[in-house]
């Protein structure tokens, strides 16, 4: 825990936001609730993934947390401040990247955008230069340092955006879809940087994404929002367990074997090659506490019946997990 760790860095109390939407060809307006009665808090130093379908209310929540939107009811406090009344003060302590909106100057070289942003945050020029250098090295931006922003590739631009959001060393970093459209290598690099940055500075991270790899690598906690309400708040393995998506054991056997059914805590999913390869689902912890079988126990049970040649373990597919949450909430 850092010295800032005493109070939560984000506090949402019954946060609600409704929009009036004008219907086509009508003067009547409908009320759409984008965020409904959302209550959660994030402690300093946490790394939270905020996931949900398009239009589930993620961006609306973020906008309320940083003072762009006024809540219809409920309240938000960020870094202990009222985001609406003390937006300017908050802006010094929070860094935000909106995936689709650039905070850089499109017609200037990357270098100049950073010089301006240093002035915007009124950083002493030596401190700004040192921090800029540090970020440029860590995010590998020196190769395109003098290139105008409009000529950058998507991956280069996103790195520059994140560096720009971190220039003033904020306590809280909010990333809205940071890896959207990036190739595998760029994603990988970005994640490694964020992990290193958090380890070095203890920055709190709130991340929205459609990429479950981001969540798995970067976040120790997940918030799932569905139709504006909080559908889940907890760890990622816990999320998988909640919706009953456990790990899957894929085993290759020496000889064709009858289906391996009847092992406690294990569901037989299917067999291939006349029983040479079998897929077994391990129950998640969420079904019943203590119900999840340990892998050695399962393997011992399997080897009583057949000779094992190889095995692999598939982690639950998080896209699938989230889909299940949605369908459960709808049904």
């Amino acid at each position, binding site marked *: 825990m850092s010295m800032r760790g005493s109070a939560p860095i984000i506090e949402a109390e019954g946060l609600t936001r409704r929009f009036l939407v004008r219907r086509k060809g009508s003067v009547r307006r409908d009320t759409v609730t984008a965020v409904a009665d959302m209550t959660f808090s994030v402690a300093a130093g946490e790394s939270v993934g905020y996931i949900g379908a398009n239009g589930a209310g993620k961006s609306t929540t973020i906008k309320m947390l940083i003072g762009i939107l006024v809540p219809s009811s409920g309240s938000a406090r960020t870094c202990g401040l009222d985001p609406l009344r003390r937006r300017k003060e908050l802006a010094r302590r929070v860094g935000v990247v909106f995936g689709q*909106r650039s905070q850089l100057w499109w017609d200037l070289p990357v270098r100049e955008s950073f010089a301006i942003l240093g*002035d915007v945050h009124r950083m002493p020029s030596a401190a700004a230069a040192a921090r800029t250098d540090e970020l440029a090295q860590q995010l590998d931006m020196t190769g395109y340092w003098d290139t105008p922003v409009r000529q950058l590739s998507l991956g280069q631009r996103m790195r520059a955006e994140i560096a720009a959001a971190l220039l003033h060393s904020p306590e809280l970093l909010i990333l809205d879809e940071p890896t959207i459209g990036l190739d595998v290598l760029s994603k990988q690099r970005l994640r490694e940087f964020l992990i290193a940055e958090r380890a070095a500075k203890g920055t709190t991270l709130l991340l929205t994404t459609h990429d479950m790899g981001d969540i798995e690598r970067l976040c120790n906690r997940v918030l799932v929002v569905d139709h504006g309400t909080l559908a889940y708040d907890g760890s990622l393995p816990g999320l998988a367990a909640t919706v009953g998506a456990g790990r899957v054991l894929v085993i290759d056997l020496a000889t064709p074997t009858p289906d391996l059914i009847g092992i406690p805590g294990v569901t037989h999913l299917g067999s291939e090659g006349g029983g040479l390869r079998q897929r077994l689902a391990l129950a998640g912890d969420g079904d019943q506490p203590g119900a999840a079988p340990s892998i050695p126990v399962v393997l011992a049970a399997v080897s009583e019946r057949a000779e094992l040649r190889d095995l692999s373990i598939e982690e639950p597919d998080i896209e699938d997990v989230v889909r299940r949450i949605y369908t459960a909430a709808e049904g």
Partner: protein
Amino acid sequence: MVDQLPAHAEPGIGRWTPYRSVLAARIRAQRSYRASFAIDTVSAFVAGLVELAEVWVIFHNVQVLGGLDFRAVLLVFGLANIGFSTAEVMVGHVDTLPAVLRAGTLDIYYLRPQPLLAQVVTSDVQLRRLARVGVGVACAAIALSVNHIHWSQATVAMIVISLVFGTVIYSSLFVTAGGLQFFLISGSEATAAFVYGGSTASTQPAAVWPGPLKIIFGFLFPVTFCAYLPALVILDLPGPPMLPSWLAWFLPVAALWAAGAALATWRLGVRHYQGGGG
């Protein structure tokens, strides 16, 4: 609470540094596209000349309009153009706000520790519009030499007041229009009509207007104060009914009213954007 301030929040760095830095970069950027800058400058200059030609055409057909002859109207035109074009250089880009709103880039300004309006105003500077300021200066200079003027300290004071506070009123028109954009995201034509209509009105002798128009442009959007009333004082002419020339000395008051209304409209607009009602 001291330990909650980030290390870089230095009070020693000037409060104008953020704005100066952005503006300096905008000027550098405009200079780096020389051809485009040159074309824009020439077209702004030509636009100024065309407007002057419109006035000249009118006076080709009549000797006197609203009690002013062409030489006198040239002074009104010159003063109005200096004020309007200076306002356009400084805050004219506020009328691109609909594009900013549609692209969602206004949200970026929320992430910076400066007031929104100050950021929007200093986000750009339209140097090419200086060409039109030039047209205005030339017209005013010619008008001041060809008219019979009884020069006094009051005359000089009136010219200065007209240029300074006229610019404030025109700038207020732009900001008012900007505030209205929050309500009419696709309504840039409506607000352009308002800003440019106001500026055209200010180049005309207000004596020719019917009463309601005098109230609208004389007091509600006080553009007659920018050039017409000061020109009456400089030329020592009486004003038409409802707009006596001594009103010109209240130009700072009119400017204060226009600026206050502009800030209030902007504030309402921002509140509407945030959805806090209003």
